[in-house]
């Protein structure tokens, strides 16, 4: 899925973020670098439909996300977007398999199909799906989070500092997992870690793309 943002404005707190133009071709693997507070996470929220711009257009694939109502953006996100957070954000009461199967269920897949897909992804990552996520190491948890983001076969995969809290070995494992499982999805990964940036052929700098102004 290609990503196209034009003239988008969104207010967060007492500031307004401007995204004049930002394009990511379909199937690209793009690293978004930049200082803390430069608007990287807010930009991912715009792409995922978690935030709606006050002005401008946000397009993902054939969908103009900025024109959708909240319910339709929820449905779009369930269907088309996978999200990996910095601190895993796994649901603590569920097993690894249940965490991974959840987005597929939310996207409307039958529970058995969702479970099968979850098991397949976890096996590819060498993880035991029956274990509670509280029993997993940090690296394992983040790999479960990667599997969860890819469970519903999204066209757009967003990863917000997914390796920030991991040591180099686990960082590489998580990146390997992301690259091997993405299967043609467009990947936009936020990171200010040079070692992570070095794994990407293409890189965008938040300072060039985004601009904050007081409201």
């Amino acid at each position, binding site marked *: 899925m290609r990503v196209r943002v034009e003239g988008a404005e969104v207010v967060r707190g007492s500031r307004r973020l401007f995204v004049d133009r930002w394009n990511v071709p379909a199937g690209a693997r793009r690293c978004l670098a930049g200082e803390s507070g430069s608007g990287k996470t807010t930009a991912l929220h715009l792409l995922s439909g978690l935030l709606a711009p006050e002005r401008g257009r946000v397009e993902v694939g054939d969908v103009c996300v900025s024109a959708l109502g909240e319910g339709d953006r929820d449905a779009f*996100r369930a269907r088309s977007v996978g*999200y990996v957070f910095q601190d895993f954000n796994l649901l603590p009461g569920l097993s690894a398999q249940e965490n991974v199967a959840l987005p597929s269920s939310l996207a409307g897949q039958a529970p058995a199909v969702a479970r099968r897909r979850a098991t397949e992804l976890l096996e590819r990552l060498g993880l035991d799906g029956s274990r509670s996520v509280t029993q997993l190491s940090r690296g394992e948890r983040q790999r479960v989070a990667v599997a969860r983001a890819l469970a519903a076969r999204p066209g757009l995969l967003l990863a917000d500092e997914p390796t920030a809290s991991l040591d180099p070995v686990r960082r590489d494992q998580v990146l390997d997992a992301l690259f091997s499982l993405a299967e043609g999805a467009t990947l936009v990964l936020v990171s200010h870690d040079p070692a992570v940036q070095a794994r990407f052929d293409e890189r965008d700098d938040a300072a060039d793309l985004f601009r904050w102004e007081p409201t």
Partner: protein
Amino acid sequence: MTLYGLVRRALRRRRREGLALALGVALGTGLVVALLVLRADLEQRTARAVAPLVVGAPGSPLQMVLSELLFVDEPAGRIPRTVLAELRAHPSTRVALPVARGDAFHGYPVVATEPSVTDGTWASLREGRVFAPAAREVVVGAAVARALDLRPDDRVELGHGREEAAHAEPELWLVVGVLAPTGGAVDRALFIGLEAFYGVPDHRAVVAREGESLTAVWLVPKAGMHHALLTGALRGRQDLTVAEAEVELGRLRRVMGRVDRLVLGLAGLSLLVALLGVAVSQHQAARSRRRELALLRAIGAGRRFVYGLVLAETAWICAVGATLGLALGHALVWIGGTWFEAQIGFRPELGWNHESVLVAVAVIVTGTLAGALAARGVYGLDVPAALDDA
């Protein structure tokens, strides 16, 4: 993983808190249900008096109705048996039945009367035959037969009960019949012949000293104006009291109604406090789980789904509480049955009470709505801000 599965897991994680909330709801519901069951039982007991009129010794008409028609109080005094002939001779009387109360068997009153008690006016036989007037034979009411597992040919020792001390030797009486259920006080009594009653050794001495006496006469006047004529004639008597069942029961219901409303109000208040607790707890839970709920939104759950999740949790807590409350209310009545029996002479019967079920449904609906209001912030959750929460 369905909504149900997520609710189940969320409640499992909060099981102590959820259980405490459900128990609070159960306690409030249980109190209300117990009172409703008791009220329904009392209403059923007082709904149908055995006779429209009762005549007895001078005293309170209400007490006479309670003791002689409902058997929930002790007889106040006695009248000579000769009064019966007078009442039967009155032109407005259709039927008159003599009644002499005194003994009790396992808390159930023993009523001495004539065999015509089973002629259909007051009660009918379900099985067996009626007692012979002078024989040591007894006919038992339907509730007594059921509670004490009595049937014809059984023998009972009528010296037991409240007046046990008055009898030196056990008196074995033969059960000869069981009455069909009437839904009234007759079901909870045992009936023997008047002559047999007077023939009991202790009673014989009293009869020899004071003559044959009754505790009351049940009266059915002829139709039309005869009810007024009969009561008018009897009200002029200094040696008798006539009580109209409907008038006295109406007075009793008015008094009971006030107390009943007060107690129900207090129980309802405790239920309200419990539901308020559920609402406050769900509000706090929704606040403390903002990040988790935001995460669900971020991975594709709609806000109605997430709100539904919180609502379903609340509904589940209230449903468990209401169901436990229904059971608790009935258990309270059952456990308190012995105490009631000792205090007011009868054991409340547990039966289907649709008001209790309505209360349980109302608890679930009200609790869920209260939880819905308290957790409404979930609906408008600022997902990016909640995801940023540390």
